[in-house]
């Protein structure tokens, strides 16, 4: 797997919103509860999960209880803040409109714990803004050629925000990166944002 490490100006990460929305992979022990996976392994604070993440899906099903729902290997965890609209409200964790969903609510399943698993993470809205620095700091995996090709043909503004880059551990010029064809099956990506404000 090829790796790309970027150092960028502050606030640059929101340019990756389509990636956060479509989902990226992280390595984790699985067969454990959502809380175990997110808070014990991936650095999400308990308080943040309980209060800020108001809408949460496991494999496309809304979750009400993060301590009971078990994350399987290859599972997809989607994290979002509270949503507007009637339907948005019906998906809120343990909300009183939950019965509007009918039968799609996620129930607890028996899964065996596996240390070498992978979980797909999708981050939406303010949760993407707030959790993406942590995930990208640890490193994520972008899987699939079309997904990797997100980086191809990006605007000058997009690349201008990058201050330094390493491809497979070797320094690479941002200009070279711009010309690169991202025809990779899988790419490991880390991004460290500068702590200083971006220039206007």
């Amino acid at each position, binding site marked *: 797997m090829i790796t790309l490490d970027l150092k960028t100006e502050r606030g640059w990460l929101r340019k990756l919103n*389509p990636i956060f929305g479509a989902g990226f992979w992280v390595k984790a022990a699985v067969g454990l509860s959502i809380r175990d996976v997110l808070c014990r392994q991936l650095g999400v604070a308990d308080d943040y999960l309980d209060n800020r993440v108001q809408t949460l899906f496991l494999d496309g099903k809304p979750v009400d209880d993060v301590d009971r729902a078990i994350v399987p290997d290859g599972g997809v965890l*989607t994290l979002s803040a509270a949503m507007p609209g009637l339907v948005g409200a019906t998906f809120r964790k343990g909300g009183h409109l939950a019965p509007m969903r009918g039968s799609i609510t996620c129930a607890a399943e028996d899964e065996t714990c596996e240390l070498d698993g992978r979980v797909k993470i999708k981050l939406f809205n303010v949760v993407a803004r707030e959790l993406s620095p942590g995930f990208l700091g640890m490193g994520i995996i972008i899987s699939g050629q079309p997904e990797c090709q997100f980086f191809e043909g990006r605007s000058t503004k997009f690349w201008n925000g990058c201050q330094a880059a390493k491809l497979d551990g070797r320094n690479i010029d941002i200009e070279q990166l711009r010309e690169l064809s991202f025809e990779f099956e899988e790419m490991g990506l880390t991004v460290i944002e500068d702590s200083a404000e971006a220039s206007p």
Partner: protein
Amino acid sequence: MDKILRINTGADGGPSFTIDGLGDYAGHGGRGMTSSIIAKEVPPDCHPLGADNKLVIAPGLLSGSLAAMSGRISVGCKSPLTGGIKESNAGGQPSQMLGRLGYAAIVLEGQPSDDALYKVFINKDGVKIEADNGLKMLGNYDVVDKMKAEYGEKVGCISIGQAGEMKLAGASVAFSDMEQRPTRHAGRGGSGAVMGSKGIKVIVVDDTDCPARAPKNPDAFKEANKAFVQGLRKHPVTGEGLPTYGTNVLTNVISEAGAYPTNNFQKGSFDGASNISGETQAELEIERGGKGANTHGCHRGCVIRCSGTFYDKNGRFLTKQPEYETVWAHGGNCGIDDLDAIAQIDRLDDDFGLDTIEMGAAIAVAMEGGLAEFGDADAAINLVKEVGKGSPLGRILGSGSEVTGKVFGVERVPTVKGQAMPAYDPRAVMGIGVTYATTPMGADHTAGYAIATNILKVGGDVDPLKPEGQVELSRNLQIATAAIDATGMCLFIAFAILDQEDTFQALLDIINGFTGASMTGDDVTALGKQILDMERDFNARAGFTPKDDRLPAYMKSEALPPHNITFEVADDELDKVFNW
């Protein structure tokens, strides 16, 4: 607001008008006003485009005051799309302006005897109606530009585009925004066609020298308004999510839930969702820059500001930030994941005066009928242009998804009472299916918005474990929504009210401080029920029966991926929604 302007478009020698007191309609506003007048004065069996139908435009009870969020406006008529009663709601400036001028409603009645087109000008000195055939077949943008040139930069406009003039059932009524652009529409149900049938192209409103409406109890009103605004600002949805991402923040979540109707309701999730999500849209708008790009209000006095301004690749204004329903209708529902193409279609819809939901649904049905491939943005743009041209194909599409389905032999037509469903598949979210099926308006998402059922306790607490829960919730939501629609408040206040009891109390205090009344939660419930009773009675007299309160049959037999579920709420459960 103590007067009603009635314009008789069928008077000898051209339209004439009277200005009356409120009479029986005192105390009504917004949807309460439009539905009261339609229910009382319009024969339910009349033709929607005939002399007996009326178009009622009514600001909310609090419009024209300094109450935050109070500038929404209701448009009512017998709908050419559904054949039933219709209330359609919009933002824009005219609501506040009409409120300040003292008008609780404008009623267009009668039927013109010739094909002249008229403009109406309203200011503090009175009302002027003039023929202006130079406006014929102009789009809303040109109409508003002409009115600005004629009446000045500060007027507000209520207008129709070509679709309204052609009396198409998908036609909207446009309301100009703070920048005097016709971007806010009473879209649903074809109210633009009724305005077209009355021969009125535009109503120009000028509130110069008209102060804000004074509250009966200024101190209590001011205090309550302050608490209300604080409540909205501190809530994560109204204070953060909506201002940052707009309503389109729903795209990712609804698609993830498998409830995002894709390719004409064939699937419940869209592979291209993240390309057109609110998050991606916000980033695009920030990158392109421009005034009001990412966070903007649809009218003065909005503190949530869920809207924005969409500039094209070259930084030129294209349209307002397309909202969730529009992005879905012209995006995922047609398999299109290109925000620029969707914004271009939104501009065309606004200019021709079309409901974006109905148009997106009609194009998706046409795609399924073989007229274009799903995902073909250019084809979609050209199909909307056909409507503006008034070609036979365009007139079919502009008449809505049901007509389009019949013409092209498509079975999968997602309508209730002839109106296209909005952006949530009822198979995945059955509670909203109950609302789609039973609201007097035809499939409508705003008819059951999230509001404080737990605070209002309308109809008692809901037991989430019982199947009747969905019917119970839908009933409570429809009641509460009808009441909010009467105030002129934007429905997005619902979230702060849902979660924060003190914000709900602040809203009641605003109403009471303004009107001098002492309304309680129970009164709000009673008002909502009263409005729904009137609307359902009108529909019953128009020939609607419980059989019309049903989803299309295919939704009970065709499973929706990815959850592979059908709509399971039984008919007799649906028939219990209005048992109170």
